[in-house]
């Protein structure tokens, strides 16, 4: 049943499994969907979807499968039963649609309540009782200039409408992120901490007590490996003019990384468009406050993880020509690309984060340099998905 939804979800990238699908079937068998599409919507979502980031994908898949199907809102079951055996919709010509200005919602509600009290059965095609295809203000598929729709195509709380509203669009993981999401993503770098290597040099107090206890009092020392995070992180940020539109995004990444306390070492450096013989210590990129790139490579061993943040968009000359640097007075004998290759060769783990969405990489002005740099560093877009992929990349040697 509904297997279309199952495959639509998988097409949308939600990895629904058979276990979850069977759970949904079990729930349907128990009658938990109450035979209404809106209940089915919530039921299926709570059983199949396990993260708010996938709510939007669910909405999209649901729309694909159920678009055009409308269910009535929850009106007393009895009234709905009257309406079930409906007449075909009443066609009303434009001329007949005289607006009825003499009505008020309160009055209408009062009348509906009265009629609900008096009416005892089905009624179709008339002008007074609740029914279908007539001109009474109450019912559906009929016409009354100011009527109360009961059942039929509903405006209120329809599942398809709820899905179409796509209220969870903001939670999509491929959207760009806020500081907290950055922090969470960076926290995943903790996974890198390998409890496998290192000496067993920390006294495991609980283990010792436990083992000694099991030994009926004869002391037995248990040693464990310290669970330290071994990650040392270097972040190099482009502070060139073309990065201005992404300033807020980058400062969020900066804040998040700065707040993460779980790295063994964390250093920030800056560059202007591309990296040459010096790397700057602050975002103002002044020569008097810079570190020679060779010194930089000596100071930070290959085990540092290198993250470069930049739009990788520049004139190809800045990357490919000797003395091509944008800054007046820069004396780079070697082209930028050589320096980048040198960096990539030195560090065992490195990634390039690009604030320009991946979909635009081939269209923007810097498409050529993006491609060139992408061949040197694995390049990811600066979104939650991109960052997660980058962090995964940082875990393994390239």
């Amino acid at each position, binding site marked *: 049943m509904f297997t279309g939804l199952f495959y639509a979800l998988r097409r949308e990238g939600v*990895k629904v499994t058979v276990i979850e699908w069977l759970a949904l079937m*079990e*729930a349907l068998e128990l009658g938990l969907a109450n035979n209404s599409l809106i209940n089915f919507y*919530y*039921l299926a979502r*709570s*059983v199949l979807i396990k993260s708010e980031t996938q709510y939007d994908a669910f909405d999209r898949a649901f729309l694909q499968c159920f678009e055009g199907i409308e269910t009535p809102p929850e009106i007393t079951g009895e009234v709905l039963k009257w309406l079930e055996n409906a007449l075909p919709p009443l066609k009303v010509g434009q001329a007949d649609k005289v607006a009825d200005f003499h009505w008020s919602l309160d009055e209408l509600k009062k009348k509906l309540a009265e009629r609900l009290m008096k009416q005892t059965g089905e009624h179709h095609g008339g002008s007074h009782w609740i029914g279908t295809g007539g001109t009474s203000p109450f019912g559906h598929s009929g016409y009354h200039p100011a009527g109360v729709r009961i059942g039929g195509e509903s405006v209120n709380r329809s599942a398809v409408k709820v899905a179409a509203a796509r209220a969870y669009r903001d939670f999509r993981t491929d959207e760009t992120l806020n500081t907290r999401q950055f922090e969470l993503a960076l*926290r995943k770098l903790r996974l890198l901490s390998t409890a496998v290597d290192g000496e067993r040099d920390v006294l495991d107090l609980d283990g010792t007590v*436990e083992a000694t206890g099991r030994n009926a009092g004869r002391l037995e020392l248990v040693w464990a490996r310290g669970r330290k995070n071994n990650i040392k992180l270097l972040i190099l940020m482009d502070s060139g003019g073309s990065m201005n539109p992404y300033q807020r995004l980058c400062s969020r990444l900066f804040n998040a990384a700065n707040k993460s306390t779980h790295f063994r070492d964390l250093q920030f450096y800056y560059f202007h468009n591309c990296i040459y013989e010096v790397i700057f210590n602050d975002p103002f990129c002044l020569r008097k406050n810079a570190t020679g790139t060779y010194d930089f490579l000596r100071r930070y061993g290959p085990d540092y993880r290198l993250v470069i943040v930049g739009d990788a968009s520049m004139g190809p000359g800045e990357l490919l020509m000797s003395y091509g640097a944008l800054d007046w007075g820069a004396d780079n004998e070697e082209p930028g690309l050589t320096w980048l290759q040198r960096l990539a060769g030195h560090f065992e783990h490195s990634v390039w984060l690009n604030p320009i969405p991946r979909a635009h990489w081939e269209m923007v002005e810097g498409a050529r340099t993006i491609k060139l740099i992408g061949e040197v560093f694995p390049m990811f877009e600066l979104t939650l998905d991109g960052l997660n992929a980058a962090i995964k990349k940082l875990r393994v040697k390239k």
Partner: protein
Amino acid sequence: MEQKKHYRGSAKYIASEELINAVNVAALLKRPLLIKGEPGTGKTMLAQSIAENMQMRLIIWNIKSTTKAQDGLYVYDTVQRLYDSQFGEGDVRDIKQYIKLGKLGEAFVSEEQTVLLIDEIDKADIEFPNDLLWELDQMSFYIPETGETVTARHRPIVVITSNAEKELPDAFLRRCIFHYIAFPDEQMMWEIINVHYPDLDIKLVRSAVRAFYKIRSLPGLQKKPSTSELLDWVQALAAGGVDPDMIEAEMPLPGVLLKKDNDMALLQRRYGGGELPGAGRKNLTGYRRG
């Protein structure tokens, strides 16, 4: 063990229909209910509300970064046994008396069905949820020390909350019913305030709520204020005798809502002032210096 009762929400807790549905689905399908949502959307309160509404005992297992799955099942108090053996107290041969059941164990052996809240499961180690898979699935665990198997007499309704600080393992997620508590809209917020402080001036509540959503929608806010902060704010405004008409324009007492200097500065730039006239300016925060 057939479940007859349905959860319907309780007087003290405003639950959306979707949430109520999710609770009932989880109870009937006999699966744990995983609740996520912004801080302050009442994830923990939900379990209390379920317990109250269905008249069951609530067992709360608060997870900390050091909590291990084993702690929830049972703890073998080896130190006590060692101590007893050295001083000749108690019957050391009877291991049973040194086995203390954890919260999960407690829920299993309870005479009546209980509601078990596993609070903030993401605080624990990444592998923690996986370690509980079997126990939550089968509702039983084995104690090798005594050779006993503890099996649940009545399957507890398990509610698990998470603040998304860590990714939960897929195998664990597959077995859960999931619900994300969206941040309440204005209408719902009125109801929530009304439940907590039924006597407050309606005009004050309305303009406070409107101001609250205005603040929340400020672009670039680092920490958005949550429901509990709004509740405090409304109370502070009422206690301070603030004129409801000026709340939206002046945003008094912002220190109750905003906890970060940057956010405070942001609000200041937008609305100026920001304090009750005459309130101690210096000791709110140090943001003026910048």
